């Protein structure tokens, strides 16, 4: 059994990059062990049994990436999407899931009865769900012909928003600023870039304010008072999204 491994007490620490994570998977196979924890530098905790630094190595990362490619798009999607999560235990969950897939083959994605697979599935779903919410609730504002917006996501959802908005607004320039992680997705003249950004100030163009006012009045007119049910509303739009949504701000 070449894939047999012991669960050890050692923790892996890596640089937080995806290549670094793949190297953790490599390390786990090279030493026939499953670590007790996998963490990126900022979340490194004191560990009784010592921490091993895993250095990102391009060759090793490439080998693991090619292995994942062979397992098919579903496995790869789950790991790549899951990696965007900011849950503290996600690295270990994904590592265990990757091992499970290498052992079982592509059909492992569907083994939701398995704890490791189910945990990875839950992470992927949480990230996808959040990205879906932002596809719904992003509110752009226009300034000098460019659309811009600020969001405060839990997970790093920008890569998942890219495809949707590039397809939807094929000839527009836009910017989505992720204030939680200090990154921005910028599209200008057909070129897409991820940038680090510190802050974004909303425009106060009169024409833009006029549009926002129109939207707020429409939103208010659409409400049926006799059916008022704020609990239902909150179930659909959790409060954390409100601060970035025009119609939830102040009165008309």
């Amino acid at each position, binding site marked *: 059994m070449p894939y047999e491994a012991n669960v050890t007490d050692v923790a892996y620490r890596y640089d937080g990059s995806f290549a670094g994570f793949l190297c953790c998977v490599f390390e786990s196979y090279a030493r026939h062990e499953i670590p007790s924890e996998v963490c990126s530098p900022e979340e490194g905790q004191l560990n009784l049994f010592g921490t091993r630094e895993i250095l990102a190595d391009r060759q090793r990362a490439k080998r693991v990436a090619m292995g994942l490619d062979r397992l098919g798009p579903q496995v790869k999607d789950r790991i790549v999407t899951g990696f965007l999560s900011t849950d503290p235990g996600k690295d270990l969950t994904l590592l265990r899931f990757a091992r499970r897939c290498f052992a079982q083959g592509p059909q492992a994605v569907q083994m939701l*009865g*398995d704890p490791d697979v189910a945990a990875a599935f839950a992470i992927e779903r949480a990230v996808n769900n959040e990205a879906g919410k932002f596809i719904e609730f992003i509110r*752009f504002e226009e300034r000098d012909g460019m659309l811009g917006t600020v969001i405060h996501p839990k997970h790093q959802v920008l890569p998942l928003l890219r495809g949707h908005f590039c397809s939807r607004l094929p000839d527009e320039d836009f910017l989505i600023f992720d204030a939680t992680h200090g990154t921005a997705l910028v599209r200008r003249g057909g070129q897409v870039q991820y940038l680090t950004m510190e802050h974004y100030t909303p425009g106060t163009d009169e024409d833009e304010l006029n549009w926002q006012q129109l939207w707020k009045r429409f939103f208010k007119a659409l409400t049926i008072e006799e059916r008022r049910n*704020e609990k239902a509303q909150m179930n659909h739009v959790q409060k954390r999204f409100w601060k970035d949504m025009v119609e939830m701000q102040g009165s008309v």
Partner: protein
Amino acid sequence: MDLAEKLEILADSAKYDVACTSSGVDRPGRHGSLGSCAAAGICHAFTPDGRCVSLLKVLYSNVCSYDCSYCVNRRTNDRPRATFTPRELADLTIGFYRRNYIEGLFLSSAVLGTPDRTMELMIEALHILREEYHFNGYIHAKTIPGADPLLVEKIGRLADRLSVNIELPSETSLTALAPDKKKTAILRPMGQIAVQSAQSKKEMVLYRGAKPFAPAGQSTQMIIGATPETDRHIMDLTEGLYKKYALRRVFYSAYLPVVADSRLPAPHTAPPLLREHRLYQADWLLRYYHFSARELLTEDEPNFDPYLDPKCTWAVRHPAFFPVEINTAAKEELLRVPGIGPKSALRIIQARRTQNLGLAELKRIGVVVKRAQYFITCKGRAAAHANRAEIANALLDPKAFSVGMQQLSLDDFVPKALPDAAPAVQKLAARGVAADVAAKTVRQEALQCLTKRM
């Protein structure tokens, strides 16, 4: 009148139209145009009544020449009136769409003069959007009953989804309350749309240049609670519509009294929201769970149970069907288990290929174990043991007894029955009983009743 005021009036007039979905067509964006469509539809906002806003839902005009007694916009009602110009409407749509406020346009209208004239104006607005602004997003258009078939054909080439409101669940009700609308005037365009939509779908496969006709199909809506029809009648009608006209959706709208009329429920009658909810649940059972209307309701019980969802009602009435063995049952059987939906049924089938499933695995898969456990076996063993009262307790729908908090002053909160709680709870609360006590009392009674029935 400025544009904001117009928008307010025409959105206010359109708000009782329920079909605000943007589903049914998948279309990626293209350079040179604006927008895309996603098959599942996308909601962009939720109003304080908990309803989704997906489309810019407005009337083209609310100046109506008809006098339907259930409608706010009827000729004899005194309210502000407004009419868009085609250009205004197109500009509004684009402005909102670019800001990601909406998924597209939902355009309906009062009968402005004649049905033909109204349709021509609507078509002009859609034409500007599609041909001039190259708008590639979603458009849902209502056809006006009585309009020329040629105009229906024209609008179907511009819109993604068409709909004709059936308005009321029976012809008798229609003649009594909407004397200007005829049953044939409603069903004829519905038939035309069904035929042309199916035809264009075939053509799209055969020829490259074929133009789509209402690619997201058609839907309809009816008002519930204004007239005496039973749920059984409504479900039969719904099923008939799905079969005969290949409708994508049938929408129900709980009647909100807007006028004092001896033929209608008195003003200030609460809208039957729980009944509407039950109808939607049953509608889902028809479309995704392989149920037929006659299975759900019988002649002796022609209305849905307010305290139990339709699927649980069916399960309680058919004990011989259960238990279902999770590890071997066919998909259709799994779908009949309360607590298992189409998604979890699919996941069960995929997961059981590689391993035997027990209760813990089902929980991870996303099955509502609370209800499902009493109806299944895992590897031949009953998943849970409980007496009848415990099972009944797990099955009762919490929505029917939902109580929220109402703030009277800064630090004074009182419990208040939510608008979709059961009528019995509302009635008891209206009589001065504290809402949480009322809900408890009604729940106790419902529990006893259900325990006896099982």
